[in-house]
């Protein structure tokens, strides 16, 4: 059941467009990650939905009701801020209970609810701690508990893990997902970190310069990026520009990679080769659904589970993650690779 519906949402600041015609919808209980580089408009979109900023045009409905005229404090949306924005003059209990107090819940029920929330986020017994006694990770949990306690209809999270160190981030990202899933909360999660987005989200929206470039599940986004912008943002390096095919051939910049176009697809002339799915072969040892490529090894880096290999083909640099067996030849040596056809993605230009 669709609960959040955003149609043609646009916004600008002092004449500079921040968001251009954003359209998407979200089902109840889904977690959407807004992913994009800084300045892409992720936080703006979040603040528009929260009612903290005003859009130029577009329609936002929540549960089939237009929420645009409703001030933010009456939307019953929750928000978790980047630096948490915990109230420094209130202790953990008072922070978490604040939203319930605003709803005029009686103290007794508030106490139960706060205790329950603190248990869920793993801070049992922290109720009377002062905020400045907490570590970064603990503050993050208090902020999560505070935004979840009033049972918001929609939870907005603005880079909630941004200021934590890497190991803590990875752990808390999966933890947040399981908490949100357990409570069946519909949520929007802003991040610029791809692995964080993939481990939290049901759906990912890639934003770039105010435009929604792709909206899909994490798997689909990774497997088939919609265009070169998305592919580059996801960190893919093997993006090869080609010419429109005559007949059904795709002329890429690399001679070895003139490929048959799929299903008469003549528009998509840019080719992405994902780095995984390659293996080293002796010449002419292809199996079905593989394409051969020969190049010279320029760099080779042992990474544990894989080798990162950079090869030069027709003056182009290509990058692959190879299994550690067989042991690759040395730097400067020629190498023959077999690449699965599923690693080739045709991108919209």
């Amino acid at each position, binding site marked *: 059941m669709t609960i959040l519906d955003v149609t043609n949402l646009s916004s600008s600041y002092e004449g500079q467009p921040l968001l251009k015609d954003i359209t998407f919808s979200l089902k109840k209980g889904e977690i959407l990650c807004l992913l994009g580089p800084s300045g892409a408009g992720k936080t703006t979109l979040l603040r528009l939905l*929260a009612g903290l900023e005003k859009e130029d045009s577009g329609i936002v409905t929540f549960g089939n009701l237009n929420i645009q005229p409703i001030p933010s404090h009456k939307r019953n949306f929750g928000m978790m801020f980047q630096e948490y924005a915990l109230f*420094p003059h209130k202790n953990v209990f008072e922070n978490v209970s*604040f939203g319930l107090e*605003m709803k005029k819940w009686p103290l007794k029920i508030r106490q139960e609810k706060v205790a329950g929330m603190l248990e869920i986020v793993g801070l049992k017994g922290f109720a009377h701690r002062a905020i400045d006694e907490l570590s970064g990770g603990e503050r993050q949990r208090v902020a999560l508990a505070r935004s979840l306690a009033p049972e918001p209809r929609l939870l907005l999270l603005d880079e909630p893990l941004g200021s934590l160190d890497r190991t803590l981030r990875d752990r808390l990202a999966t933890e947040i997902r399981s908490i949100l899933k357990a409570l069946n909360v519909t949520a929007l999660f802003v991040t610029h970190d791809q692995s964080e987005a993939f481990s939290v989200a049901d759906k990912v929206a890639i934003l770039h310069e105010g435009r929604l470039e792709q909206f899909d599940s994490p798997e689909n986004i990774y497997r088939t990026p919609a265009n070169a912008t998305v592919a580059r943002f996801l960190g893919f390096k093997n993006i090869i520009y080609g010419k429109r095919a005559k007949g059904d051939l795709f002329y890429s910049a690399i001679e070895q990679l003139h490929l048959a176009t799929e299903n008469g697809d003549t528009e998509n002339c840019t080719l992405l080769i994902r780095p995984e799915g390659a293996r080293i072969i002796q010449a002419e040892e292809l199996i079905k659904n593989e394409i051969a490529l020969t190049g010279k090894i320029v760099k080779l880096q042992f990474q544990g589970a894989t080798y990162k290999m950079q090869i030069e083909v027709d003056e182009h640099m290509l990058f692959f993650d190879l299994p550690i067996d067989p042991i690759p030849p040395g730097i400067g040596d020629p190498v023959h690779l077999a690449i699965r056809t599923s690693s080739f993605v045709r991108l919209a230009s």
Partner: protein
Amino acid sequence: MRNGRIQFSVNFLKTNFGSNRWLLLSLPLLFLALFYFYPLIKIVFMSFAPEGVWEPERLRQLISSDNYFRVLRFTFWQATLSTLLTLALALPGAYIFAHFNFPGKNMLQALMTVPFVLPTVVTAAAFRALLGSGGLVNSWLITALDLSIPPIRIDQTVAFFLLAHIFYNYSLVLRIVAGYWSSLDPDIREAAGMLGASPWQTFKKITLPLLVPAITSAAVLVFIFCFTSFGVILILGGPGYATIEVEIYRQAVQFFNLPMAAALSLIQILINFLLMWLHARIGSKNRVGFFSTAIGGTPKKVKGFLQKSFLLANLLFMVILLLAPLSALLLRSFIGEHGFTLAYYSSLFTTHSRSVFFVPPINAVLNSVGFGLAAMCIAVTLGLFASTYLASAKGRSVPFWDAVIMLPLATSAVTLGFGYIITLNTPPLNLRDSLALVPIAHGLVAFPFVVRCILPGIRQIPQTLKEAATLLGSSPLQVWRYIDLPLTSRPIMVGAIFAFSISMGEFGASSFVTRPHTPTMPVAIFRFLSQPGDLNYGQAMAMSTILMLVTASGFWLLGRIADNR
């Protein structure tokens, strides 16, 4: 081997500096002992033993007298009222400065520093020039409405000096509160909104509680200033009103009732310490900025009619409050009974037969500048010694000595001046007729400010720089000369500016220790103002204008030196 030698020289540096370090503190301590503790102890003795005999009963009688209570009650009452009025007027201004951007904001902020550096006597004169019976507004109204008596009769009323107190403290409150307000994270307010709090609930439950430390800190400070108010009340309040400070002056100088003055001083000292302690506690607990609270944040543009008119009303009030008295002062110094005149200025250069001076009044300018420079040297020298000690010393004794050095801040200048005339006029220290007494008093008053300027500067110098210099062969003295001193030249300059301007405007202690033939400018202005006649009045205006200009150019000059460094 090499490591051993390096370790040795570092240890040597520590011990060498350590054993002699207290020498640095001895000069400031000696100065404090002679010119601060000695007079103060004498006051206490005089309170308990007025005629050399231990008579606590006398003190009890003095304290339980009606006059004593009246003065005490009035002092508290006017300070409370001034504080409340200032807060009520300045908080909307603080809101505006913390939240909005508007044209002329920077200029207005610069203008706000004016009351900080304006001598009390000049402020009093400026308000007389604006609203006094011979002031600009009254003379305009008389001409315009063809009246026979001045319509605004605010002279010698409570309202008059309350107005001056507001002028003094308005920008102080605004700076402290606006600086703190703008530093509050706007996310916190938005978080409250997202949790369902309406704008009013957010203000009541989040913003206001968070502002409490800044507001209390500002309020206590304003209370202290108004509680120890002297020049403003003496000049604007007239004989009918007396704070403790004014009463000490009257009892000592006019009635020669030294035991009563001592008893009043004693209570003033005690209350001042209590208030300063309170302020220090609030400040240290909440890190409220005092001197240089920058107003930052991300200000919004003004939107809507309501916001615009609120902003405009406040800005208008600020501009009138800050500019009107000063412009009136300037105008009044050039306008006599028959229009434009330079007579007030020219008469400063002659010794008038009817004048209250034995020398041309213009000499007061030279006296003040001379005393100011001498006081500056005293305060900076003492400040450098004390700061160097406090920055290099470690351990529990540091906060103690720091507090001792700050003591003069907590003591009213009038008390100090009174202490001087009862101690320093008899052997072993007979300085009664010495010119040195004024710079000494001013230097003592300025000394804590100088330390507060220099000490953070020295403390900011990374220890590694000094260690590097040591290992490159510098002696402790050379480290100080080549590392500490150059890197703190700016704070030293700022401290010097403070010391000079404090001396230029100082009136409380000066009113006791200035000799009749070598008046300072504030003392001269006070004497002019307390005499009848248009010429005296005009001369007060002219002298005040000159004092304002001299102080301003002192600031400008020293500011330029600091910039060129």
